[in-house]
């Protein structure tokens, strides 16, 4: 088998079966013409090295076969900006998935902070980022080829774009919505036990065991419903930031629900009981006091925040603008 046959066989292997014979026959004629043209110019037959140079000059078999494909790019220029935006979101989600468990474990004093950071940065983040980026790329390539129908990119209205604000840009609004959606989704997964965060028992420096009080069990469904409404609200903001009244309705529902939950929790204090493991009774009592005070302050702040949010959301619902 001479060099031309070898070259053409390599190209043929990469071509669609239906057109293979046809394209290879045409390429053979073209390459023979090239060789003959050179031979005519030199006035002698080409050496093997010169024939090889002609074939090499024509291009790598992968590139030559690739030019005959129906699709020249994985993700075309129209879709590319949307793809890059989705990739950024995927990376933010990967970062959140990696950081939150490490943060929780760190706050509860379960592991060496340096070890947790290293684990999050070099193990969890790269693997989740690669997985999510791969998924986004697959979906984008599917959209490019028309396998995944997507009307959102073509059927959009200028009137549904968000009203620009001096305080918040569009990017910030959407970024906040993405962040909120990710955090709430992770919370829901954790709350329902679908996402198991391996932080062991709730202990403080392995000296005191924190046991959630019965109120958390009682409020399981109300808290889940509240988080679900918040997730839908964040997704609405992400997809249709211009629907101010719809967004305000969700914000109002979330803030009112938050206020109701805070009130119930306030009445059910303390929210955790402390059981000493290695700590002394005095230490436990001291810690109980600190946690109790912390809970009171947290709930007071939450109550004030929810009250402000209720006011702001109600105002936006009434005015219909940001």
């Amino acid at each position, binding site marked *: 088998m001479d060099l031309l046959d070898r070259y053409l066989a390599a190209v043929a292997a990469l071509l669609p079966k239906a*057109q293979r014979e*046809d*394209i290879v*026959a*045409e*390429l053979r*004629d*073209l390459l*023979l*013409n*090239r060789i003959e043209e050179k031979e005519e110019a030199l006035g002698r037959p080409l050496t093997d090295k010169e024939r090889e140079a002609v074939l090499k000059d*024509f*291009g790598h078999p992968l*590139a*030559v076969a690739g*030019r*005959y494909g129906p699709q020249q790019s994985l993700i075309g220029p129209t879709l590319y900006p949307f793809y890059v935006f989705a990739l950024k979101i995927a990376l933010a989600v990967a970062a959140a998935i990696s950081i939150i468990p490490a943060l929780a474990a760190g706050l509860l004093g379960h592991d060496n902070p340096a070890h947790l950071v290293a684990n999050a940065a070099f193990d969890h983040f790269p693997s989740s980022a690669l997985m999510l980026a791969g998924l986004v790329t697959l979906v984008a390539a599917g959209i490019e080829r028309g396998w995944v129908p997507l009307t959102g990119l073509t059927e959009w209205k200028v009137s549904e774009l968000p009203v620009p604000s001096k305080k918040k840009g569009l990017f910030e609004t959407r970024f906040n919505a993405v962040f909120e959606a990710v955090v709430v989704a992770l919370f829901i997964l954790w709350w329902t036990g679908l996402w198991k965060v391996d932080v062991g028992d709730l202990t403080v420096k392995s000296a005191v065991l924190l046991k959630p009080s019965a109120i958390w069990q009682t409020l399981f469904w109300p808290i889940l419903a509240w988080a679900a409404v918040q997730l839908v609200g964040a997704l609405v903001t992400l997809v249709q930031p211009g629907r101010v009244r719809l967004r305000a309705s969700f914000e109002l529902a979330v803030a009112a629900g938050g206020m109701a939950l805070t009130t119930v929790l306030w009445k059910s204090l303390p929210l955790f009981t402390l059981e000493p493991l290695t700590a002394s009774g005095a230490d436990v009592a001291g810690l109980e006091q600190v946690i109790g005070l912390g809970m009171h302050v947290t709930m007071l702040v939450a109550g004030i925040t929810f009250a402000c949010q209720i006011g702001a959301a109600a105002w936006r619902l009434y005015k219909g603008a940001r």
Partner: protein
Amino acid sequence: MAHTMPTETDIFESLRQELRRGTLILAVLAQLKVERYGYSLRQALAEVGLEIDEGALYPMLRRLEGQGLLTSEWREEEKRKKRFYRLSTEGEAVLERLAAEWRAINDTLQNLI
């Protein structure tokens, strides 16, 4: 990794290629009013000063044929089987419209540059 800034020549070359890309299809269609095979088409284009990379020309011919603008048939010439292309009826109509478009663009640009 340090990024090197593209030189003026690089920028010109990329813009030149972009400018030529669309016009090459027009030239190919115009040359195929007469039946030709790929290699002779490339030579005919080169003779009028339009060099085209064969790697791009052959897939382009297939695309144009797939779009119904060209017809083709295999025939033997100079003791070798060659694929001859020529403009289809649909191709002639498209060429006429594209040529009119080209003349209009050319007239407009002549006034601008």
